[in-house]
């Protein structure tokens, strides 16, 4: 076979080579055309006042998380109400900074008046946002701040410290007269949201990190199955845990599963933060005792309104706007304001 294949191969190689040259030429020509078009086409797009409808862009961390789906819904609702042209974009995965940078650039090119963004990377997004602001675009952070905070015109977010405090106070009241053994299922090291909720819970409970009643602390990345694993490990370490703080409801439900398989679900108090529909359902069915509900819909609604106000009345924005948080429980304690699960289900997301 080799000896007969050789001449054929030579012919083939020669053909390939010649065809390649021709193709290269055709291709180079079309690339050159494109470049020529590029430079000939003139003036770039300008952001700002062009007399048309107000244009707002919303950039979320991902397209798939129900939290951001709700946020988008709020933006759409508000956009319809105020006759705003809304466009949306998202990172490809949680943490995708470059995708968000690209979205910011494209929205500026589209001539938006304002951009609302939940940054995937609080620091890395800053140069792109600064460029947008230099072109006169109003930039609002939703849900999570940038670093430094001054890189955006304003932040619309939950007071996460307060969200933690509410469930801390609640757990304290429920555990009155009993000796508490607390497990803390946290987010990840160095992430602001996680730290704020964690510290808030401890403050609400009236203890410090070093308190002997905190018998176990684990990072879960906010993931349900990691939450389950963390809880299993905590129960190995301290089988008598009776209070579980969780960073969000998926983790709370993971912890519930671990507790249930040990027969400990009934006598353990799980508290959480978020207010997603699955979470509030779990409050209703008693798996989770209480959760602090946050409102992504409100963040986006207020954001759109702020852009409209800014364009029409040139109002100045500064700093931080609290979008509210409510304690959701069907087993309220005396002296603490709370809403029941029906209220929560009306306003949940997911």
């Amino acid at each position, binding site marked *: 076979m080799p000896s007969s294949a050789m001449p054929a191969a030579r012919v083939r190689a020669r053909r390939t080579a010649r065809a390649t*040259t021709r193709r290269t030429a055709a291709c180079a020509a079309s690339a050159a055309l494109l470049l020529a078009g590029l430079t000939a*086409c003139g003036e770039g797009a300008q952001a700002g006042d062009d007399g048309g409808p107000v244009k707002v862009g919303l950039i979320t961390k991902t397209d798939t998380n129900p939290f951001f789906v709700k946020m988008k819904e709020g933006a759409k609702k508000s956009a319809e109400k105020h006759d705003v042209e809304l466009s949306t974009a998202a990172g490809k995965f949680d943490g995708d900074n470059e995708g968000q940078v690209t979205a910011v650039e494209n929205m500026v090119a589209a001539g938006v008046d304002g951009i609302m963004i939940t940054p995937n990377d609080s620091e890395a997004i800053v140069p792109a946002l600064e460029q947008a602001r230099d072109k006169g675009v109003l930039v609002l952070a939703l849900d999570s701040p940038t670093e430094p905070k001054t890189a955006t015109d304003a932040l619309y977010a939950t007071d996460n410290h307060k969200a933690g405090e509410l469930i801390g106070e609640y757990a304290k009241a429920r555990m009155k007269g009993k000796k508490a053994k607390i497990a803390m299922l946290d987010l990840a090291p160095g992430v602001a949201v996680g730290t704020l909720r964690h510290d808030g819970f401890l403050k609400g409970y009236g203890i410090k990190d070093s308190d002997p009643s905190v018998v176990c602390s684990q990072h879960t990345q906010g993931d349900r199955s990691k939450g389950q694993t963390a809880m299993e490990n905590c129960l190995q370490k301290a089988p008598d845990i009776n209070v579980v703080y969780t960073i969000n409801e998926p983790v709370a439900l993971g912890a519930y599963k671990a507790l249930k398989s040990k027969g400990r679900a009934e006598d353990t108090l799980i508290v959480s933060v978020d207010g997603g529909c699955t979470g509030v359902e779990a409050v209703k069915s008693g798996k989770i005792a209480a959760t602090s509900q946050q409102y992504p819909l409100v963040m986006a609604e207020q954001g759109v309104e702020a852009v409209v106000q800014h364009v029409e009345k040139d109002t100045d924005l500064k700093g931080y706007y609290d979008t509210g948080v409510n304690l959701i429980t069907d087993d309220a304690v005396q002296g603490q304001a709370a809403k029941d699960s029906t209220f929560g289900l009306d306003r949940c997301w997911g």
Partner: protein
Amino acid sequence: MSTTTAPAPSKPPSQAAQDPPAWKRFVHTPTAGPVLALLVASTFFSFQSDQFLSGGNLALVIQQIMVVGTLALGQTLIILTAGIDLSCGAIMAFGSIVMAKLAAEGVLPPLVAIAAGIGVCALLGAANGALVTFVKLPPFIVTLGMLNIAFALTHIYSDEQTVTQLPGELTVLGDTFPMGSTDISYGSVLTIVLFLVFAYVLGQTAWGKHVYALGNSPEVARLTGIRTARLRMTIFTVAGVIYGIAALLLVARTGVGDPKAGQTDNLDSITAVVLGGTSLFGGRGLVLGTLLGALIVGVFRNGLQLMGVGSIYQMLITGVLVIAAVAFDQISRRKQRS
């Protein structure tokens, strides 16, 4: 497309190729599809949005595809040999963190830090090449392993921290210069120059012809006297160097060293290669096609955003385009053969 008169079977192939008119020859090249797709898409978007055809916007598209486009250039070299590289994005991320961190912390002067970053990319590329060539492992498996290794190295070395406060040498490619009324980034120019260089190398040099021969049939290439082992090693290493340049472009574009970058860039680069008409079976395709492929993705992303269409639809359309591109390639080849 053109179903007309197939050349008489008795004619020798080289002569037959010279007979049909130029446009017909063009339709049979692997770049016909992408050129057509790009033209149709651009026409469509220019009717949909006033901003689309502005110089500033088109410069922006090129700036947005320079990182994935450059990765896809390295990917093209490997796919031309019937290989595949799943690790390119992760290798780039590691290179970008190495150069960013070394420079930001002042361990090395900025230019040396850049060289070090490109160097580690070349090293990881060479490691891929050695495992494929000498241990004879399939490229898919080797680069799948390397994807995980490079990802882990990135996160270990960066300590999960974004690197900021970079010296100007690392971000200069993100700066722009005015050309007429349009601002063009230096990185865009570098990307296009890289593509032109490799278009020349692959099309006009002996080395380039050897690459195609290796992709067509490694056995035949070896028998015609090409040192295939050394060639394959070189291709993977050169691809690594190109990923290193992509790393520099990435740092320049975002202005930071970002350990989370590049996680979907391996598949995005393969998308660009496939859209550009390069066959995954090797031996057929052009680097300028890859540039067109990357531009198609960029144009759709940008154009749909200008129209206000959500990003999830951009993914939907990219998926349809990839399948359409491969189908187009298969059908046009079957027509050619019959």
